[in-house]
């Protein structure tokens, strides 16, 4: 990449970050509050009734899952909503006439999505720490799965944003794919407590590995080996990023 390419990439990244930061009440504070409500309700109902790992209360168990769910959903929401808004209002033309490479688009949209996902995740972690003790048993896994999960969903949001032509198509993607897959990924329970069929089904959900690997970083215990999780997440990441880059290169639905 030339010097000019870096300047352009940096500017687009800055613009994407500024975009969500200017409405941070909606893009950061609101999802933190939502996660806190989940914790209050599920923690209140299930604390003392469900124990997944020895010596770990249900509320403690729930926190990493909620943090990761917030990271995933907000990373997806950022790139997808930014792109669909620009497409529908027509201001994507400012980017289309600029000398930005497909790689620059990718880095900026995914980078800003990762930042939003991680800021929201950190916010959730910060406020939920009041409710239950938590310490990082294997912090490297926390970092690895937080970054990989955010990147995966930022790139998936980019694909959805390129594909969608209307707001309700983004909403459908979010409500019928992202929400069920995150809710059924073991955020609220251990998949080992499920009947055999649903246990098998959960193992086909890449989000399960992100949540399980992330939780490993806090408790040093997980449903599957973190290395297995890492392999699944890395393969998903390569596939989704490759597809996003290919769509950008071909000008899919943006250069006719």
């Amino acid at each position, binding site marked *: 990449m030339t*010097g*000019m*390419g870096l*300047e*352009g990439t*940096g*500017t*687009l990244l*800055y*613009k994407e970050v*500024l*975009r969500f930061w*200017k*409405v941070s009440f909606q893009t950061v504070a609101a999802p933190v509050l939502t996660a806190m409500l989940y914790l209050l309700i599920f923690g209140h109902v299930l604390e003392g009734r469900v124990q997944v790992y020895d010596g770990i209360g249900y509320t403690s168990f729930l926190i990493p899952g909620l943090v990761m769910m917030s990271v995933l959903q907000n990373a997806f929401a950022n790139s997808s909503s930014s792109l669909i808004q*620009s497409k529908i*209002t*027509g*201001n994507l*033309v*400012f*980017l*289309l*006439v*600029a*000398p*930005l*490479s497909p790689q620059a688009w990718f880095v900026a949209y995914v980078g800003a999505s990762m930042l939003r996902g991680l800021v929201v995740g950190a916010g959730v972690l910060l406020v939920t720490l009041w409710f239950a003790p938590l310490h990082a048993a294997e912090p490297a896994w926390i970092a690895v799965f937080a970054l990989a999960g955010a990147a995966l969903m930022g790139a998936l949001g980019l694909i959805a944003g390129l594909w969608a032509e209307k707001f309700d198509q983004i909403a459908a993607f979010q409500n019928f794919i992202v929400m069920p897959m995150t809710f059924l990924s073991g955020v609220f329970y251990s998949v080992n407590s499920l009947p055999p069929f649903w246990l098998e089904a959960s193992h086909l959900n890449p989000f399960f590995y992100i949540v399980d690997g992330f939780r490993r970083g806090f408790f040093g215990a997980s449903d599957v080996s973190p290395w297995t999780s890492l392999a699944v997440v890395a393969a998903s990441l390569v596939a989704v990023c490759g597809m996003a880059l290919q769509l950008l290169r071909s*000008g899919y639905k943006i*250069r*006719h």
Partner: protein
Amino acid sequence: MRAVSFQQVCKTYPGARGALRALDGVSFDIEPGEFFGLLGPNGAGKTTLISILAGLTRASSGRVEVQGHDVVADYATARKALGIVPQELVFDPFFSVREALRIQSGYFGVRRNDDWIDELLASLGLADKADANMRQLSGGMKRRVLVAQALVHRPPVIVLDEPTAGVDVELRQTLWQFIARLNRQGHTVLLTTHYLEEAEALCGRIAMLKQGRVVALDRTSALLAGTASTMLGFKTDQPLPPAIAQHARVTGRIVQVKAHDAAEVESLLAQLRAAGVHVEDLEIGRADLEDVFLEIMQGAPAVAPARVAA
């Protein structure tokens, strides 16, 4: 080196009822420093051609270059040389005018550009709106920001796609003074417009598109000279003699008839008098670009692109 070069550009859109051929072998060049007009009725392919130049649309075949750089293979260099003012009134509601200009500048790799941004704001009458959010601006002000955004990286080639559609007189004047100044400083300008008097006043050379083909390409003065040079105009409430009615352009009470010389004017007036037509507000003027435009659009079939390009 040519500022812009279109070479056998074709564009076909697939459609439910067969393919639509929006551009059919368009070829012409624009030299550095020219003020060039691209005219044609709605649907002639003007915006498609400009979209291909800007990289918003891809040609089905053919080649487009900006300062010798292919707009597909060498898109980054080509786009750096182009400043496009889009037809649609688009804006990013998240930012102020200055933020929008700084961001656009950054996309082109130009940082610390505030001196030029200030100059643009002042020249376009936007200085007091610099910190206003884009949403708060009137349509005319948003249009000015679009012009500023297109010029923020000081492109040598400026493309304006119907920049004065629905714009008030004051902005039109400000805009043309500014663009004319940039043209005198050496910038190449490509303009599409529906206001033919603007094209006549500003453009040194003109191409006319009809159904995706170039049907005229010449110096503005040559286009005007090539047609009947005199226009007889008057108002009347009475029916015209058939011989005149056949060739006249009638807009309500206003009648315009072409005449090649003074003798023909005399003969037309004699015919009107003989028919007993009462004539008011008689004028004899030169034919303008609108007359040329109508003659070309109604007349001759599309000229073979190869001949036009020569």
